[in-house]
């Protein structure tokens, strides 16, 4: 019995893994196991021997159980240690390639602007891209033969309509559709007959803004524009300046410049050595435009702005050439993973 006891204890100690240990456990302490047999055999012994034999058998059983538990704990600890050691884990090994879609960078910038302005209570509107001369020019205080029409370089359609040269026609359209107070933005596609080069496109994207209410002022315009540019260009410390600009549909009219983001104002190629980048024509809505929209300029005032979305997108992402925006060059498109 002692010999066999030692044999069993050795076998337990030698068990290499949990499966082997389970087999040994089963062979000893299982229902049909050797030790269980021994325990059962006690009852067939003479009565006088029973207590001692019973005690011995029980003790053996407890001893083996303890050895099994100890060995199991040891094997589990070993295996955990092995698992944690992770010998061939390579922190530099990448995961499988992920295919991701993209939004066009102008869309991404536009979405952010729309979100900002709708949070300020602006309604997001659109208008026709093929426009009438009336909404594109006359209603905006640009009569026929006005020199400002030169600057516009209009694409005319054969039927006498035109491709809108700015998003501003939607100003009067919106005034006619809703009554003041008005807070409107109109991002959209515009067209001007220009030769395409690194900084000019005949198809461009603009975001019009219009606010009409009682007592809207230049001070409100400055605040709204500064807020917008700080958000979209992600610069809390953005420096801007407001200077005179001439557009027939505003009076007074302004150009809003931002301190050049590339040179910080020292002067570089992008800012044409001036230290400032012209980013946003704006102004107080001309009384004639309010009238064209059926609004009494004595009762209401307003401001309007027209942001060049390509310009803002180029500044935000550091894109040097406006021609990248159009067409299917994936090498460009897939760089902009922000949605």
């Amino acid at each position, binding site marked *: 019995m002692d010999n066999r006891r030692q044999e069993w204890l050795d076998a337990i100690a030698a068990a290499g893994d949990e499966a082997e240990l389970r087999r040994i456990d089963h062979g000893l302490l299982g229902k049909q196991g050797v030790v269980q047999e021994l325990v059962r055999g006690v009852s067939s012994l003479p009565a006088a021997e029973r207590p001692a034999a019973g005690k011995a058998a029980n003790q053996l059983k407890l001893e083996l159980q303890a050895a099994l538990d100890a060995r199991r704990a040891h094997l589990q600890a070993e295996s955990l240690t092995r698992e944690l050691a992770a010998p061939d884990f390579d922190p530099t090994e990448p995961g499988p390639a992920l295919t991701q879609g993209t939004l066009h960078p102008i869309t991404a910038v536009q979405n952010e602007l729309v979100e900002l302005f709708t949070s300020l209570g602006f309604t*997001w509107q659109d208008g026709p891209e093929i426009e009438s001369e009336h909404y594109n020019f006359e209603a905006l205080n640009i009569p026929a033969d006005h020199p400002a029409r030169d600057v516009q370089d209009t694409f005319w359609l054969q039927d006498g309509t035109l491709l809108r040269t700015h998003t501003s026609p939607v100003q009067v359209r919106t005034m006619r559709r809703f009554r003041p107070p008005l807070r409107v933005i109109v991002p959209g596609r515009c067209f001007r007959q220009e030769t395409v080069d690194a900084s000019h496109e005949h198809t461009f994207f603009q975001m019009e803004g219009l606010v009409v209410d009682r007592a809207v002022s230049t*001070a409100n315009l400055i605040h709204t524009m500064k807020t917008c540019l700080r958000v979209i260009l992600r610069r809390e410390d953005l420096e801007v300046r407001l*200077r*005179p600009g001439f557009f027939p549909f505003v009076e007074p009219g302004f150009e809003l410049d931002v301190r050049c983001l590339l040179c910080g104002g020292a002067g570089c190629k992008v800012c044409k050595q001036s230290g400032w980048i012209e980013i946003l024509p704006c102004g*107080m809505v001309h009384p004639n435009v309010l009238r064209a929209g059926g609004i009494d300029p004595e009762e209401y005032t307003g401001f309007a702005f027209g942001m060049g979305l390509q310009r803002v997108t180029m500044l935000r992402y550091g894109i040097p050439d406006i021609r990248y925006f*159009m067409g299917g060059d994936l090498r460009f498109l897939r760089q902009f993973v922000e949605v």
Partner: protein
Amino acid sequence: MKISIRWLQRYVDLSDQRPEQIRDALTMSTAEVEAIHPFAVGLDELVVGHVLTCGRHPDADKLSLTTVDVGQGEPLQIVCGAPNVAQGQRVVVIQVGQELPDGTKIKKTKIRGAVSMGMICSERELGLSEDHDGILVLDKDYTPGITLGRVRPLADHVLEIDNKSINHRPDLWGHYGFARELAAILGRELQPLGAPVAFPNDGARLDLRIEDADACPRYLGVCLSGVKATRSPDWMRYLLHAVGQRSINLLVDLTNFVMLELGQPMHAFDRRRLAGDVVVRRARAGEGMVTLDEQKRELEPSDLLITSGGAPVALAGIMGGLGSMVEPDTNELFLESATFHAATIRRTSTRLGLRTDSSARFEKTLDPAGAELAVHRFVGLLGELCPGAAPAGPLLDPAAWRFTAPEVRLRRSRLDLKLGHVIDDTTVRGILERLEFGVRTTDEGFAVTVPSFRASKDIAIEDDLIEEVGRMFRYDNIPEAPLVGAVLPPHREPELILARDLCRMLALELHAHEVYNYSFVPDRLLEAVGVAALPHSVVANPVAPEVCRMRRHVLPSVLQALGTALRSAPAVCLFEHGKGYHPEVRDADGLPHEVREVALAAAGGPGFDYPALRSGVAGVLRRSGFAVAFDELLGRSDELPWIHPGKTVAITLGATLCGYVGELHPQVAHQLELPRGVALANLDLRQLLRAGASACRFADLPRFPAQPVDVALLVPQGTRVKQCAELLRHAGGKLVRGVELFEVYRGEGLPAGTKSLNFTVTLGADDRTLTGKDEEKFLAKVRERASEVGAELRG
């Protein structure tokens, strides 16, 4: 336009202002200065030399060998090629180590064996003019060695003004206007122009007649005698050169000088070439003339002419005629100074493609008072610069134009309200008065009289005056203030919001890339996709003749972009959100119908094929609440010839057709050099919204487990999944919780002409757990009814 700071200094003291300060002052209050160009900068350091000796170069006929005293050290030996170099002259010397304005560095050289220690300069070499006929000879009393800056300071900076920022300011098309602005900004005095000239009451005259007073509100003319077309004085030539105006002769230069000073174009005719009375009239049909640039111009009745003796002698306000221009021997002038109707000049100039300095100014609506001012200025300067020249007769001014200064009210309340900042009365008054407005205080604010040079176009209403105050105060000095108002949710445009959401989801869920394409489509593309014959909106002045049509649909542009994209990736899905234009349908304003579409195209195999696009699009639409179905696409082949007729389905919502998804027509694929199996889809957002979105609905969770049953139906090819699914639904009755196709098997082990549609049918009941019996009953029913769709239950 170019503005010379040296020129401005004739009228306002800017000596303490750096060019950058002047640029910033103008930019912030008046007009955008785009650049500062240095002119003759560095010349002030050069020294005056005295030509001590001047002899022939021993080995070159055309060169002279000179010694020049430059004030210090030994006289320099300099080889000079100019024909006019001579002993005793004072000249400008550039010495070894110094640089010419064009960047040429002067070195000690040997010219034909003779050492030259510098250069005696011509005006062109100094960048002062285009004159290269000889060296610049200075006054004899200059001490050798003195710097040019001490005796003849020439350095200048030229401001490049953005023309579009002064389109509305006729008064800013000359230096005097900018000087007035700077005087107002800096609070300085503006020098008056010379005194008016006294014209004789009698003498030589050409009678004037204005036939069309609307087109010509004012026309002044005077005959001048004793004139000589000599060389203009240096100061004038240099100023003209600095702003890019070539010097011709005194008479021509004077008209240009006055134009660049006051913004008023004039025309000097050779009096001898004018046949008689001068008449301003419209051209007659069939009339023509040859302009100064020797071009024959066909005229139209809308063109305005200056005629003499019945024949055109100038295209009014644009360009003079060839026959009557100033010649070297001209000794008598007829000087014109007029005001023409802006739009008339503009129309003619645009039609003829003839933009001149003159027409550009008349287009701005000039002040008729300026026409008179300019004549006096011209004649005054001519008298100073051309001894003997004088008016030969009266100054004729038949229009008898009189200016009454308009009064515009400026209410304190409007000023405060529009600027959002209160500027005190003294400041407001000071600003307006420095700009030469008349200011009278009233109960409500101010009554402001407008000077003539601001009244022709620019200042008409109160808001114009608010601008004057604001810009001079500087908008930057207005503290910002947030908008205030009622807090209301903004009106939402479902179409725009849907477009934005779909684009975002296509990028996120389908891993698609958004592209932007032009709305103009090349004829080649329209032909390739087969819609060239459909009505298109056509651009009359396109970027290129073959790219003049506006797209009806977005998809062809996406297909074109797909070709580009496939060069950088083997598999890709592109989409574009944009509009198609349908000119055959018009809205109330007569504008073509615009359809907002989201178009997709994909290529590159599994995941980028029709099945993937179909599920992807359906999934994305479900997220926006559109539980779309797919049906046969009927009768769109004319409008959509690029779709594969046998492999395209309609996307429907109820009875509304909202788009399609399918494969590209193989013939179009061939034309566009795209691979076979390109998948495409199009969504019409307005149709989707018309059909309506529905919100997600909660369905109670099953209390008893569901039981999935796999069913494989062997069917003849051509059998539709939909039929089989319906069969399965019927067979299962109310126990059916879902029918889903998980595989279509074609090929090995199946009889020819058949396929196996493998479904998982989920069965369940609300009141009990199903047993094997339920499944058996269901399968038995399927087996029994399979033949209804020509199917056979497998296994």
